[in-house]
């Protein structure tokens, strides 16, 4: 059973860029679309096992698109696990935006009342730094108010700072049913193998699901950077019709291992270079079984609750 993650918002609010960055898709030639994105047919991107991303333009000017949207409404909003609504912070038609947002919420309420709602106030880099918090708080208040009785979580994002990555990581974090258990297991795992840090990445997007840090590290942006680098590498690999599976990086100061973990995750282990690779690889192999079991349990759990 596939569940949808709806990525919605006004045309031009930055959804395609967001999707391209998070899911490492090339920007296609036809970004200047004349009509709204009908992305359902093209989204083969699955993440977190059973989730599929659908992109929809909301509030387009074309009557044709409006009609399609309205007539297909129920179809679109059925089986939705997550609604991510993108607001362009620079939009001049705030009321109209809110209006479209509300109509989406109505549809959600009718068709997928259990769906989690996230609102992204996007393109925040265009706002002057000292005003960002203020503007965000204002919008957040309005949105929370408007969304009642549904609950929405708001993030402020920009593709040019770490906020986008963090917002999406938070979203993914909230979607994992037994995430606390996962974190505990990860902690345990890190202690056993004596790693400096262990990260758990979502497989398709390399968003950090969880991490256990046993040694302090100064670079706060390291998750996003690693994620970007690996996604670039995956793009290069795909040009050769090869698939990235694992990587080991060593120097005299550290050893890093990136490997497939479970069907939905990748693991990255930073350890002391003195520890031989084989030891760590064996540990990963053994841990895999345990975490896969965890994942299967959580999947059946979430299936049962639906």
């Amino acid at each position, binding site marked *: 059973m596939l569940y949808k993650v709806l990525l919605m918002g006004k045309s031009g609010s930055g959804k395609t860029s967001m999707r*391209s960055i998070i899911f490492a898709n090339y920007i296609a030639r036809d970004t*200047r679309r004349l009509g709204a994105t009908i992305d359902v047919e093209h989204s083969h991107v699955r993440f977190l096992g059973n989730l599929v991303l659908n992109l929809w333009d909301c509030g387009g000017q074309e009557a044709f698109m409006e009609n399609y949207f309205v007539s297909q409404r129920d179809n679109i909003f059925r089986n939705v696990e997550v609604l991510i609504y993108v607001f362009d912070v620079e939009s001049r038609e705030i009321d109209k935006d809110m209006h479209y947002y509300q109509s989406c919420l109505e549809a959600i309420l009718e068709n997928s009342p259990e769906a989690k709602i996230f609102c992204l106030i996007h393109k925040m880099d265009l706002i002057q*730094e000292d005003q960002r918090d203020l503007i965000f708080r204002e919008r957040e208040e309005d949105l929370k108010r408007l969304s009642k009785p549904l609950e929405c979580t708001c993030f402020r994002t920009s593709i040019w700072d770490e906020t986008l990555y*963090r917002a999406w990581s938070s979203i993914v974090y909230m979607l994992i049913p037994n*995430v606390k258990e996962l974190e505990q297991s990860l902690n345990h795992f890190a202690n056993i193998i004596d790693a400096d840090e262990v990260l758990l990445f979502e497989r398709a997007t390399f968003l950090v699901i969880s991490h256990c840090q046993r040694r302090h590290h100064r670079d706060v942006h390291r998750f996003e*950077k690693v994620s970007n680098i690996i996604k*670039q590498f995956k793009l290069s690999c795909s040009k050769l019709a090869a698939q990235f599976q694992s990587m080991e*990086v060593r*120097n005299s100061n550290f050893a890093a291992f990136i490997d497939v973990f479970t069907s939905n995750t990748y693991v990255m282990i930073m350890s002391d270079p003195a520890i031989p690779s084989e030891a760590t690889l064996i540990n990963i192999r053994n841990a895999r079984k345990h975490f896969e079991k965890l994942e299967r349990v959580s999947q059946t759990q979430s299936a049962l609750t639906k």
Partner: protein
Amino acid sequence: MLDKIEPPRPYTWRSSADQTTTDSGSESHPLMSSDASRRSFGATCMFPDSETSDFEATAPSTQAPREPTPTPAARAANPRQLASARRPFSYQNHQDQLADATYNRFHYYNKLRSYAPYEDSTLMIPDHVIPLPVFIPFIPGQERNTQKQSSLVTIFAVWNTVMGSSLLTMPWGIERAGFVTGIILMALMGGICLYTTYRLLEINKIHGAGIVDGEVADLCKLLLGRPAEIIAKFFSLIVLLGANIVYWILMTNFLYHSVDYIYERAAGIPIEPLIMNDTLSTLVLCPREKNNTIPENIVESESIYSQVWNINVTVPVFLVLIIGPLINFKSATFFTKFNSLGTLSVLYLVLFVLIKAISWGINVDFTNVSSPLYAPSFLPSFPALSGMLALSFFIHNIIISIMRNNRNQEKNGRDLSIAYILVTLTYTFIGAVFYISFPLKKSCISDNLLNNFQNWDVMTVAARMFLFFQLVTVFPLIAYMLRVQVMGILFKHSEPGFVNILAFNVLVVAICVLFAVLLPRIGTIIRFTGALSGLIYIFTLPSLLHLASLRIRGELTIPILIIHLIIPIFGGGNLIAQFFVSE
């Protein structure tokens, strides 16, 4: 997990931005507003390689990098091997961390844009996101001197460019004019050329500021109208064509003699015995009188070799085999690498003349008319020299471009004068010294001074071979310039096909070969080309441009008008006189 991630700190690079002149109080606006600046971030992305940051060791190329960067960890196999032994991720400040994160994103997003059309600005880094250290401060009012040349380099460039084919012809020119007249004419022509060149630069300074890569033709169009522009372009072509023809003849000459020398050496033919009793004449020839002095015991051998390898008929055609392929390249930039050979050849010739002069001593008699060494002070054939000098001092069609790169534009006049003085001195040295020390009758001096030497004279052999090679690298350049200009006129908006290029090259080579076969006298060609293009470029156009400029500015006075109309008349006289010169 949310608790473990530290809250985002406010961007602190903004605070250093407050120290610049950008006004920070108002709404955020990009530091640079043009679209071009967006592209240039990819082009000029040179993240400062400070001790604190750990960026790519190799500077990114002009295109945004397409390949993934290896993680700094992977690249630095051993930090001790790095020159400064930087530890990865050792940022000293928050600002560098942010800059590095921005660079990482920029890199990744650029890869995502690989297949997007160029105009698409999706995921292109906006100006306000670019970290401050990347910017080069632009202080308005101060020109960026990144690509300018110092005065010394400019002077040298002018000297090098002016020095041309007429170096070998200079002694002949002085002979044709008479010694004293020759020197005076040299100074006079040098002075006029300097003046008119300077005028061109001044006019360009006043009127040519808006024209990108402007030259004389553009100034003509601006001040004198379209017909003047066409004339300017046409006569620029004449110069190039004339130079090509002269080079072809010279190359024929050098090739012939070089191969002759090698053949004679290989075939064991003995050195030609004395033609005259005078020992000096074993070293020096008088080509003019060669036909009258063949002694009986030298038989003109009608060998197959001399039938096949004939300077007047076959060698010009054989030259096509060598030069032909070279001129068909799409771009001649390869040949610019040999620019330095030109300077070397000038220096070698100066040395050559000096050595020969020292070995001959002074052989000139200004008073005794009956002496074989009589050197007249004045000859009615002096226009030969003035015509020739018009080409020798010619630089008017590219001087603006050369001087544009001068770092101190105010010193243009000074630098130009120095360059012209050096040119005049060089020419005078070669011409006068050779003339004074030449041991035979002065009228024997050939229009290619190397022709005055025996085939087996080592320095001459070396000179011919070296000069041949040098000309082989210069000819394609000149032919290319000629081709580009003609094609630019004929095919204004389209790329000329290979067939057109080939046809054009065939035409040019045919003209060169014809001249080499029928009229291989470089003295004649140089003086006619010089007088013709000199009339336009040296005398007429600069004067007219100056008058037009003055008129626009309302500063035209009658005396200036008269002077600047006399100059073209002088040029016209120069041209007409060429037809009455006896050689």
